[in-house]
């Protein structure tokens, strides 16, 4: 089958994976992005970038786990800095029931006691007597990995234009990865606001994402290396992408402080918020409208789903095969 001229709109995590996958499959790929600077308008720029297919099943459908597991393989094959340290779930003593519920709702974990927890994360020694360890989960640094994907796509021959949102006239296929910006075309799409902050501290060292369960303010901390930590994230039914509110900042900071008092001395490096695109079932979709293909609705699972969705798009273009739960 002859290779195609493909234009991808939107250079967030979804569009970057589409670009890299399709250019490596031999297509002539142009990636265009409205914002002038890379990743400025992308909600994935604010992501935690955990690759947690098992833990996410606490509040998501089985499809997320299935696509997510495939994505981890693709991340590992593609991006050498994929951190495969697993992830740890803990709760304060009075929230142990949240831990039981989490255990019941998910798979791929083992129960760990205080000594296992302190072997894995010495700085949490003596603070948590029970936890769940998801050995097969991973994480990446969102900005570094997005940079990597962009450079890799360009090295493989993709043409990239920032500050542009019109597709060139001669293109066989348009792959629309604009996230919430595609709402005018996709009526059911809505925004779900996520807020997070970044802190820096030398006083605590974590080597894997840690989630602290709480009935109202569940929180995760993702180590970015060099003392940087992402603390996230709120989940608010709103497509407002404006600055973090004081209330959300208080929630995030006080929960981080509860996770470990060392966060009390950390420097706040940045606050940020994005509107994550979601369909009513919070599941991703690939919507084929002739030669215009939407890949959207990645919700809070951008990094977890983007590689697998890119693979599905590439397979569809190659063979016409459609995954029944993703394509419509």
């Amino acid at each position: 089958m002859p290779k195609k001229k493909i234009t991808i709109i939107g250079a967030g995590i979804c569009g970057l994976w589409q670009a890299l996958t399709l250019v490596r499959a031999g297509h002539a790929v142009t990636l265009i992005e409205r914002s002038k600077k890379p990743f400025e308008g992308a909600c994935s720029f604010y992501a935690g970038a955990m690759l947690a297919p098992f833990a996410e099943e606490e509040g998501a459908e089985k499809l997320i786990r299935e696509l997510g597991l495939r994505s981890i393989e693709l991340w590992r094959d593609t991006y050498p800095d994929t951190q495969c340290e697993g992830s740890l779930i803990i709760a304060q003593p009075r929230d142990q029931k949240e831990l039981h519920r989490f255990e019941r709702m998910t798979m791929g974990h083992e129960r760990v006691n205080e000594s296992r927890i302190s072997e894995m994360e010495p700085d949490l020694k003596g603070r948590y007597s029970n936890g769940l360890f998801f050995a097969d989960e991973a994480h990446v640094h969102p900005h570094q990995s997005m940079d990597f994907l962009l450079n890799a796509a360009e090295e493989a021959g993709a043409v990239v234009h920032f500050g542009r949102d019109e597709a060139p006239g001669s293109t066989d296929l348009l792959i629309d990865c604009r996230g919430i910006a595609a709402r005018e075309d996709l009526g059911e799409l809505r925004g779900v606001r996520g807020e997070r902050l970044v802190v820096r501290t030398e006083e605590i060292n974590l080597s894997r994402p840690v989630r602290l369960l709480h009935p109202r303010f569940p929180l995760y901390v993702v180590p970015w290396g060099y003392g940087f930590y992402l603390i996230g994230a709120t989940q608010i039914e709103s497509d407002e992408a404006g600055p973090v509110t004081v209330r959300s900042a208080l929630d995030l900071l006080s929960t981080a402080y509860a996770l470990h008092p060392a966060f009390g001395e950390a420097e706040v490096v940045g606050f940020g918020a994005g509107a994550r695109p979601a369909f009513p079932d919070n599941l991703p979709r690939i919507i084929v409208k002739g030669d215009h293909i939407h890949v959207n609705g990645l919700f809070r699972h951008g990094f977890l789903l983007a590689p697998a969705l890119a693979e599905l798009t590439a397979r569809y273009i190659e063979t016409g095969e459609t995954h029944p739960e993703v394509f419509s």
Partner: protein
Amino acid sequence: MMLEFYGIGISSRLLIGTALYPSPQILSDAVVASGSKLVTVSVRREAARARAGQGFWELIKQLDVHVLPNTAGCKTVKEAVTTAQMARELFETDWIKLEVIANDDTLQPEVFGLVEAARILNEDGFKVFPYMTEDLGVAEKLVGAGCEVLMPWGAPIGSGQGLANPSAMKTMRAYFPDIPLVVDAGIGAPSHAAFAMEMGYDAILLNTAIAKAGDPVKMGRAFAQAIDAGRLAYESGLMEPRDMASPSTPVAGTPFFNIDSA
């Protein structure tokens, strides 16, 4: 007799909170499966800036049920009143579930602020549904402030303990025979809901027990059936418990009746 709030008939006695669901689709499926005709929606953040929660609100509208906006998370009278006014504009209803929270740890109502906010809102034309405890003194003040519905908690919000103080709940029912009483918060299992309905409570409002269930859609049905059963039992008149066994057939004359061991 159909449940009525401020003169509006509601054909289901299960009222559902819309937070914490895995997705709006599952929320929608659970509401449909439960037959609930009234959902409560938190206004505080969705609407916070630039009416930014429209996507979610559109999905709620499609459910075609009564919407009771709430002021969840408000800690002061001013906050609650402002949120209520925002809700009236956004949801085009004068109904408001009024929450004024004392602190984030217990989520107890701050009853002084609650009564004050209820008075202000009632004067402003709102139909107020106050979230409260079973305290009768506070209840009377709320009725005095114009509330025609009272919503005592069964137990703290999200705790799933059921009715922590059943005798106070019974007293409240007896004290306010003609005011619709809704158990708002604390219900964890369908049996808790049935128990409250057997006491004569008019409806149950709950969120976490359905939203965080392994299968929220099925749990919605379970609550609907328990609430129906409790209501039917109340309407039919429950038997009074007795201290001793009371055989349902006469024992005298029963063959092999042993007089020595009787």
